[in-house]
């Protein structure tokens, strides 16, 4: 077989159109532009909502913008915000964690019991508590990656398991903060920054924000978390060890929840087996309000902080205005549904 002289079809066809963004020439309506903007800048929506709620409550109640009240909102937000940070990691992988609150309560009880009743030094009690959170996360991660169960089912089960363990270890009794080592209560202590009283717990939350934001956006691990949540099979074919990424995400989330447990002890100056029961859903609410997509692969840590603040501001503002607690829940519920609808709409962007 030798070189053929038959002319190739390729050589005779004219230059094809370039692989260009031809669709962009079509005129865009205002809604299209808003949709594209929100798609490109995922944190814009939450930021706008946060600003609007703050403005609204500032107009309604004159006390809202007082430094003391703002500091209170920060304290109220720190625990939920921290849980929501761990939850963000899991939702980015297209998972969901219903066991956040249970893991946190279990860890706070472990820390409290070790320190108050067993006389273990506070730093050791803290470390064991943090390790327990990580172990809980690994348990969930193991079931998700090895047994291949859906995260919803896994965490629905472990929610009950961890909560039962919590009741067993605590004997359903609240442990008083006064009986615990000082270190465990450190997160509730207050430092005055520029006239505003801030708890160390709130500062600790901001540190976690910085660490997670760095890990997600500046490291290989972060890129792999996004890729895994975006399209798991694609990530696998691209050579990412998807199961290892998922397992690490659940472990890190568990550790973050345990830090949340530490903050909870400081915030309520005790360890109560019944604390944080509502926190499972509130953490998901904060993540969703922060613009992270429940379908995975899309979202930012800073958005979750804003989402947690939106929940905090709404609850605080409504109670300042003298509105019944049930309407706080109503308002948060409406916000969640609106946020998910918005996410669905933004996701429809194609070219």
């Amino acid at each position, binding site marked *: *077989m030798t070189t053929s002289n038959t002319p190739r079809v390729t050589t005779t066809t004219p230059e094809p159109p370039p692989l260009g963004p*031809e669709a962009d020439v079509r005129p865009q309506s205002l809604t299209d532009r808003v949709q594209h903007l929100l798609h490109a800048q995922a944190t814009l929506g939450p930021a706008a909502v946060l600003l609007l709620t703050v403005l609204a409550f500032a107009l309604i109640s004159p006390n809202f913008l007082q430094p003391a009240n703002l500091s209170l909102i920060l304290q109220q937000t720190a625990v939920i915000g921290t849980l929501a940070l761990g939850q963000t990691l899991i939702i980015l992988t297209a998972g969901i964690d219903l066991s956040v609150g249970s893991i946190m309560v279990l860890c706070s009880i472990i820390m409290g019991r070790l320190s108050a009743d067993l006389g273990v030094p506070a730093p050791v009690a803290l470390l064991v508590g943090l390790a327990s959170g990580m172990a809980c996360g690994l348990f969930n991660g193991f079931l998700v990656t090895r047994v291949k169960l859906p995260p919803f089912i896994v965490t629905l089960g472990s929610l009950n398991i961890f909560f039962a363990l919590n009741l067993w270890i605590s004997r359903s009794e609240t442990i008083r903060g006064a009986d615990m080592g000082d270190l465990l209560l450190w997160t509730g202590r207050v430092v005055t920054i520029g006239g505003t009283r801030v708890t160390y717990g709130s500062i600790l939350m901001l540190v976690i924000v910085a660490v997670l934001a760095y890990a997600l956006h*500046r490291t290989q691990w972060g890129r792999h978390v*996004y890729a895994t949540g975006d399209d798991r*099979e694609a990530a696998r*074919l*691209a050579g990412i060890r998807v199961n290892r990424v998922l397992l690490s995400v659940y472990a890190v989330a568990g550790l973050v929840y345990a830090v949340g447990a530490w903050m909870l002890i400081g915030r309520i100056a005790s360890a109560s087996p019944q604390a944080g029961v509502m926190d499972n859903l509130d953490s998901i609410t904060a993540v969703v309000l922060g613009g992270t997509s429940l379908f995975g692969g899309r979202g930012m840590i800073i958005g979750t902080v804003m989402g947690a603040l939106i929940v905090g501001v709404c609850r605080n503002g409504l109670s300042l205005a003298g509105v019944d607690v049930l309407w706080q829940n109503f308002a948060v519920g409406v916000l969640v549904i609106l946020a998910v609808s918005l996410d669905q709409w933004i996701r429809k962007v194609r070219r």
Partner: protein
Amino acid sequence: MTQPTPRTDPAEPAEETVPDPSTTRPVLQARGLVKRYGGVTALAGADLELYPGEILAVIGDNGAGKSSLIKVLSGAIVPDEGEILVDGAPVRLPTPIAAREAGIETVHQSLAVAPSLDIATNLFLGRELRRPGVLGSVLRMLDRARMRAEAARHLDDLGIMTIQNPNQAVETLSGGQRQAVAVARAAAFGNRVVIMDEPTAALGVRESRAVLDLILRVRDKGLPVILISHNMPHVFEIADRVHVQRLGRRIAVLDPSGCAMSDAVAVMTGALDPAELPEGALAGRAAR
């Protein structure tokens, strides 16, 4: 004609680069591959040879074992019997990563890109570059600037000039552009073979045209290509040789310049015995 020289100017029209099988060693070779799924035999002693600088099309009816063959070569499945040789040396490809390490890159039909991540990140997905020094080794910081620059260079290499911004999310690209990103990734990292599974299946006429030209440019850079396609006009336009897979084995290798498209389809479906093909239809017959 001996070893074909890789062309450097992509604007130069592609002429015949069919290698002479009698004098060149295959870059990639499969011998006697067998793969059974329970009672179903997907591969029944399949062979394949890919020579330097060629585009080898693999055609076959549904169930002929095309995708099993490709999965074996890309490390996605392990054959029950048979061997694979890269540059004449036997290799084992138990995982997709092993195939990549052997220099075999695959563009899957699903493209295997993460839509919400940008082009540069997708090009380097799974083999990201880290910053030099402590930032990279201890803090594990990505070298985004270098990945972006190299991504732009790879896209430029293949003449995908219109994707100007490697920071653009892949989901904002058209189907053809996404295909181009996946091809660019394979071409950038593949140093022996690029396998493309149905690259034009989901594309319109204009985009298919551009992707076919892209495949020719990959070939002209010196990388041999295995092209799996159902689209006979595309196969006959750009392939140097056509491997016909039927009932789990290779039944013929056709020379697209000497074989009618209808004959190829007839061979593929079993309506025509390869022995009855006219003179010059089989690739390599003249060399013997």
